[in-house]
């Protein structure tokens, strides 16, 4: 063996390392803090893995674009959803540096195919004017993820055109296939047929069973479908309808090759088919189709539910759906909850039940607003409850149970606003200090979506437009309002 190339390589390697120009060194410097030293992902789940990721395989332009111009928004990587911001590096890194980094990423279980400096330069030149970050679907449209060959061997797909009144799986013995094609990608797919109506497809192939035991087959389709193993029906999706009607059937299988047959009928409109299997020797669930089976109820993995602690109210200040950006939320023991909007001194949301999921704000960077964990939320206000008045929020007093009394000014009036929960809803007391005789228009409800809510005042009657005219004497005045939401 000739040692010279080896020595030369070692020397070159030393130079590369010292100059910090090698892909691994550049990767460690610029990428590893977020994506992990081995490309395993990181940043508390904010940055997706790069190792063994389809995003880093196949067409290199996909990755080149991400590095040059950045990527923002929702993407799915290795079965996990990310809502991310990958900052653009094109202005910082040279073509050669990007090529070196991506070549290193390709070596992390992504096939190892090199990315050339010329390729980076070409993509940079083509999108020289681009300033916007890429969106995931925009990238995937131009550079679809490579699909690894599926598990179905010797797969053949037959096409049957059907009569327009055919609403059930036909008797194939009486039909002649209009077309037949091998499917080298080893996956059940509708490619070429997804826009058509009134047809049937039948797939036949082989599946390799590694270990003995019971297997589950899950099938979903728009419209009908049925799955057979060794000519025995295992599972079917009956009746016309859309995706999302997945059914699961079980079969006990022995090691070796089994025959699989899937029949599918499309009536009109949308199309779709998805199949998967799981069982001994299969890690998790393996897809048998190019479309993945989506379970009907997506688990809420981000749920961080906030609850009152003992007899103390729970507080939450964050960006919340359906109210302003300076809102203080209170969850009282007993299940009454409210949101007070500090920007307009309005009691905006009121509901009974579970308080908040903080997960959208407290996972990753917090890109999504928080929402109450109940469907029935009363939106009481849009805008200020004191029309035409200047107001400013001052602060809040907290009692020993952490129940707040909000303090604010309306014009030159000083207001203390105390909601107190009871078994029907809340009793809200406005204590208003006035320098002289005065009156104040109070509009506690100025939104339409309050069906089922009752509002009554002790001693005052609502005017025709739903507002109350609060008569004020010099000194302290007190008004009570009962909000019923049960």
């Amino acid at each position, binding site marked *: 063996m000739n040692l010279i190339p080896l020595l030369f390589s070692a020397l070159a*390697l030393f130079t590369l390392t010292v100059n910090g120009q090698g892909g691994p060194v550049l990767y460690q410097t610029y990428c590893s803090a977020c994506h992990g030293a081995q490309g395993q992902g990181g940043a508390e789940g904010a940055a997706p893995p790069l190792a063994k990721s389809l995003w880093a395989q196949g067409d290199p332009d996909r990755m080149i674009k991400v590095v040059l111009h950045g990527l923002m928004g929702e993407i799915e990587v290795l079965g996990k959803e990310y809502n991310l911001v990958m900052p653009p590096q094109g202005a910082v890194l040279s073509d050669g540096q990007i090529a070196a980094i991506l070549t290193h990423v390709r070596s992390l279980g992504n096939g190892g195919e090199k990315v050339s400096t010329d390729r980076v330069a070409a993509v940079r030149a083509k999108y020289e004017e681009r300033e916007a970050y890429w969106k995931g679907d925009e990238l995937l449209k131009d550079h679809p993820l490579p699909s690894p060959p599926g598990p179905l061997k010797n797969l053949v797909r037959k096409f049957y055109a059907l009569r327009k009144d055919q609403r059930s799986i036909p008797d194939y013995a009486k039909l002649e296939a209009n077309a037949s094609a091998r499917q080298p990608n080893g996956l059940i797919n509708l490619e070429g047929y997804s826009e058509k109506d009134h047809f049937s497809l039948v797939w036949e192939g082989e599946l390799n069973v590694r270990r003995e035991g019971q297997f589950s087959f899950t099938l979903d389709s728009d419209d009908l479908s049925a799955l057979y193993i060794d000519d025995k029906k295992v599972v079917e999706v009956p009746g016309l309808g859309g995706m999302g009607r997945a059914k699961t059937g079980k079969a006990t299988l022995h090691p070796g090759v089994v025959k699989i047959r899937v029949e599918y009928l499309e009536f009109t409109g949308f199309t779709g088919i998805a199949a998967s299997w799981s069982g001994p020797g299969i890690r998790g669930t393996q897809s048998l189709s190019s479309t993945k089976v989506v379970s009907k109820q997506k688990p809420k993995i981000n749920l961080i539910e906030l609850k009152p602690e003992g007899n103390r109210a729970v507080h939450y200040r964050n960006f919340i759906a359906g109210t302003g950006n*300076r809102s203080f939320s209170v969850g009282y023991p007993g299940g009454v909850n409210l949101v007070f909007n500090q920007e307009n001194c309005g009691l905006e949301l009121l509901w009974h039940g579970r308080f908040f999921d903080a997960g959208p704000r407290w996972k990753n960077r917090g890109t999504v607003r928080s929402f109450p964990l109940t469907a029935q939320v009363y939106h009481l206000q849009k805008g200020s409850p004191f029309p035409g008045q200047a107001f400013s929020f001052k602060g809040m*007093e907290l009692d020993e149970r952490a129940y707040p009394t909000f303090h604010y000014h309306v014009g030159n009036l000083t207001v203390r606003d105390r909601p107190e929960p009871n078994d029907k809803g809340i009793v809200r007391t406005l204590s208003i200090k006035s320098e002289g005789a005065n009156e104040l228009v109070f509009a506690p409800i100025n939104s339409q979506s309050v069906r089922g809510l009752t509002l009554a005042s002790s001693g005052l009657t609502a005017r025709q437009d739903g507002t109350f005219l609060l008569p004020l004497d010099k000194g302290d005045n007190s008004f009570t309002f009962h909000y019923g939401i049960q």
Partner: protein
Amino acid sequence: MNRFFPIFLFPVLLLGAVTAWANKFNNEALDQEMSRYYLREEIPMPKDVVFEPGSIALLPDQRIAVGTRRGEVWICEGAYGDDLSKVTWTPYFKGLHEPLGMYWQDGALYYTDREQVGRMVDRNGDDRPDWVETISAPWGLTGNYHEYAFGTTPDPQGNVFVTLCLTGSFNAQAQWRGWVMKIAADGTATPYASGVRSPGGIGYDAEGNLYYTDNQGVWNGTSCLKHVVEKKFTGCPIGNVYYKDAPNMGPQPPDPINQSRIVKERERIPELVPPAVQFPHGVVGQSPTAVIPDHTAGKFGPFAGQLLVGEQTHSEVQRVFLETVNGVRQGAVWEFLSGFEAGIVPMRMADQGTLFIGGTNRGWGSRGSKPFTFERVRWKNVVPFETKTMEALPDGFRLTFTEPVDPVTAGDLASYQAKAWTYIYQKKYGSPMVDQVDANVTSARVAPDGLSVELTVSPLTKGHVHHLQSTGVKSKSGQPLWHPDAYYTLNEIPNP
């Protein structure tokens, strides 16, 4: 199979192995070196709490308040003690909105969070606030996660300064995004300076000058420490649309020309204050955060009066020396403390010389691999051999050292290497190092006491970062410098 394949493969594998080894070795060696001078310790955090520190306030009686990114405030006792297993935590309040600035004054805990500058007061002495007050909330919010607000401790007049990240870090859809606001004790808010992009922290130097850190991105070629001067512009023009609402600021300065240089645009835009110190991206960290002075007059080692700057991505603390040249603040940065367990965000230095740091990893990755951390660092009374200061001279730099140098190596030109570069000032995200200049150290005059060296460096380039590597310099006892690399941002060259 091609029989040469393994030969081709070998260097690739070796490269990977050597790189990993070199990185590991380098980091471990630095951590080991640090442990000779500084003791870094993890402080136990409240059990089963996602802690994620975003702000630290030092309270009387050696109590510490920590505000978390989840909006909780916890009070710590025992964090100064010798036995950290005795540390206890009490929940104080839960319900702020990601506080990134906190301090204690006159019995109240003041905070800056996403929404406001406020204070919490415990009037009945049950260790929980019964009054939560909004002092000022003058800025806009759209609900974007990037709308962070970092607040200072009060200045001698009682003002708090708040630096406001751009919405999404690149637009100013909401009022005052991209500005530094001054909040007076009575809540009066005044726009104070423009030009902010994405800050990571704000604070004063030992003389009371105000700085914030801004992260590499649009109109910011590399992360830097920016000097905040009243009525001036720190560089990112996106928030300048609000000059219309800031009559006290004077007329809106012209926008910088895209793909120019800061040194050039300073001639066009008199309001533009150049970054006091630029931190070369990836070399000296890549996400600077907290800014605090070492005000302990020697209790934290030989760097009294210098600035310490936190670093999120690299989980480090950098050290900064600053001076004024021709009326402009500028200076040098060195890497300093490293090996923290998560990305550093808040820091506070206690009077008796303990540095407290908080770290979080959420959303932005860091070398330190824990999701969050609370730590302290104390000096071991062993002086590291370091370049203490680096001052600009009309024809070079004057270095001072923490202990006398060996005059032979310090006087040897081969001990030094200098080069300089700058960054493109542009609306694109970041910049490569450009306009590189190979500088030469042409003379080295060692002072008789061995505590300083005057270097002639040729050429000096106005506006460039000057990287001086003093690898060959040894102390009298034969030690090399702990951190031989200094990066000086030469906004101005002193007049002869």
